[in-house]
Each structure stands twice: as structure tokens, then as C-alpha cells.
């Protein structure tokens, strides 16, 4: 079974996308903590929302590292 590099790229890109699962869980965890934090201490507008958005953006960065590898595999390499 000869695997052409072209088809290996597609399988590689498909495999790489699984890495996005972790970022989904991470962002869910950040916002669940935000909701719990607000219910416990409704001083929302100051730090909690800011921290949650910072946490979201940093987790999003990991998700998009994965996407970068996927684009690299599909288009660039």
C-alpha cells in the first residue's frame, strides 16, 4: 500500500485537528469558573471578567497553534 505524500497530508491534518479538543475543554473550564465565581461574589465588572477573558485568549492561542499546524500541513508543506 503506497501512501502518497498528498494523501498523507490529509490524514496528518485530520489527526492534528484532534488537538483542538483540549482547548474546548479549557475554555469551558474558564467560563464555568467565571460563572461560579460571579455567583459566589457578584463583584463581576472588575477583575473576574477581565481574568476570564485573559484566560480565554491564552487558551485560544493554544487552539490556534493547532490550527497553524493544520494549515501548515495542508497548504504550506
Amino acid at each position: 500500500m503506497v501512501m502518497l505524500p498528498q494523501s498523507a497530508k490529509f490524514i496528518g491534518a485530520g489527526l492534528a485537528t484532534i488537538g483542538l479538543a483540549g482547548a474546548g475543554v479549557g475554555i469551558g473550564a474558564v467560563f464555568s469558573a467565571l460563572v461560579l465565581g460571579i455567583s459566589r461574589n457578584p463583584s463581576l465588572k472588575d477583575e473576574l471578567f477581565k481574568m476570564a477573558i485573559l484566560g480565554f485568549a491564552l487558551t485560544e492561542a493554544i487552539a490556534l497553534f493547532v490550527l497553524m499546524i493544520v494549515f501548515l500541513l495542508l497548504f504550506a508543506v
Partner: protein
Amino acid sequence: MLKAPLEQFQILSLVNIKFLNLDFSITNFLLINILALTIFSSLIYLSSARVEASSFQKTSIYFNPNAWQKTIEGISEASAQLISDIITTDNQKYVPIISVVFNFILFSNLIGLIPYTFTATSHVIVTFTLSFSIFIGITIMTFEKYKMQGFALFLPANSSFFLALILVPIEFISYIARPISLGMRLFINLMAGHSLLKVIIGFAWSMLLLENLTSLGLILPMVIVVILFGLELGVALIQTYVFVILTCIYIQDGS
């Protein structure tokens, strides 16, 4: 279709100026940077003190702020607030650099959202120049201030000797990785977001070309594109905020 999602990031030169095999051509990338500069400076100039006597109501930056001035004050207050929050020691000297970085990224992100324009920050070279120059500046600053004790940066507080044996190399690697992840985060957020939009618009377009009734299915990708545009606007603002907040954290770490 293959190259379509990434086609929007091509730098096309509008006016080719070759000068002893150096390429000074005017490209759309340069145009967008100039546009961002002019928008920002005209925003400031338009609402600041104008001395012509004709206007009955004397608009000036100090007395009665009009709407434009509120926006500028909002933007500069946001960056000043960030600095005073994070950097505790003599933070006034960082205000210019941080607000310049904040405004450049904010304006190039927001301009990039307009269809048919070009996003300056969706290129690795731009975000890497920003993050590496900031990183090298911070490193010089810390070692100039702390001389040789600057290496204490890599030793987290009150960790025992054996813990330090493990932590110092990891801390060193994560210190080296800071500019890379800082620049990569801004770049990939913008690039992936815009290409996501392009891909889904591509589907809406190809769905339109189907035969009669199924082309009505175009509505679904269109709705997704509208929602994603809201997300893109959020990402554009959040990413500038994160870039600047991390820069302040690194400055605070170093100073």
C-alpha cells in the same frame, strides 16, 4: 478554491519601484499602515483644539470634550489603565511605548475587518518584529538594571535547591519562548479567524451555484458568517488587550 482561504493575505505591489535591485515598491501592506496612521492622527487632530474663529462653539481638548475626544480619551485611558494596573514601579515611563503598540495593533486589526482591506497584523513578520523588539528591549532593561543578579529571573521565589535544578531550565525555555508565543498568538488569531471567514463564505458561494431550491440553503453559512464576524471583532479587540497586558506583565517581571 484550494488557495482561496489564504489568498487574502498576499502582498501585492501597486507601484513597482526598483532601486539598484532593492524593491521599494508601494504595496497594499504599506498602504494599510499609512491608512492606520492617518486615521489615528486625523482622529486626534480633528477633535483637538482648533483655533479658527468661525466655529461658534470653540472646540478644544481641554474644556468641553466632543464625541471624538471621548473616543480618544477612552482609548488612551484603556492603555494607561492597563499600565498602572500591572506595572507597579515607576510606570509612567512606559506609557508612550505601550500606547503606541496598543493603538497600532488596535487600528490595524479593526481596519482589517473591513471587507476588501488588508490586515497588517495577520503577517508573522509584523507580529514577530513587534514581539521580538519588545522582548529584546525588556531583556536589555532587566540586565542593565540588575547587572548579574538579573539571572535571578529564572529562579522562581523560595524554591529549594533540587526544585531549582528542574525549574531553572524550564523557566529559561519559557523565557525564551515568550516572544515567539507572544507574536505567534496575535498572528495566528488574526490569520485563522480571517481564513475561517473566507472558507465559510466560499461555502455560501458554492451553495448559491447549486440548482434551484437547494441554493436557498445559502442562508445557513450566511448566518454563521454574521456570527463569526462578531467573534472576529471580539478577537480583534481581545488580542490587542492580551498582547498589551502580557507586555506589561513581562515588563513588570523584568523591572
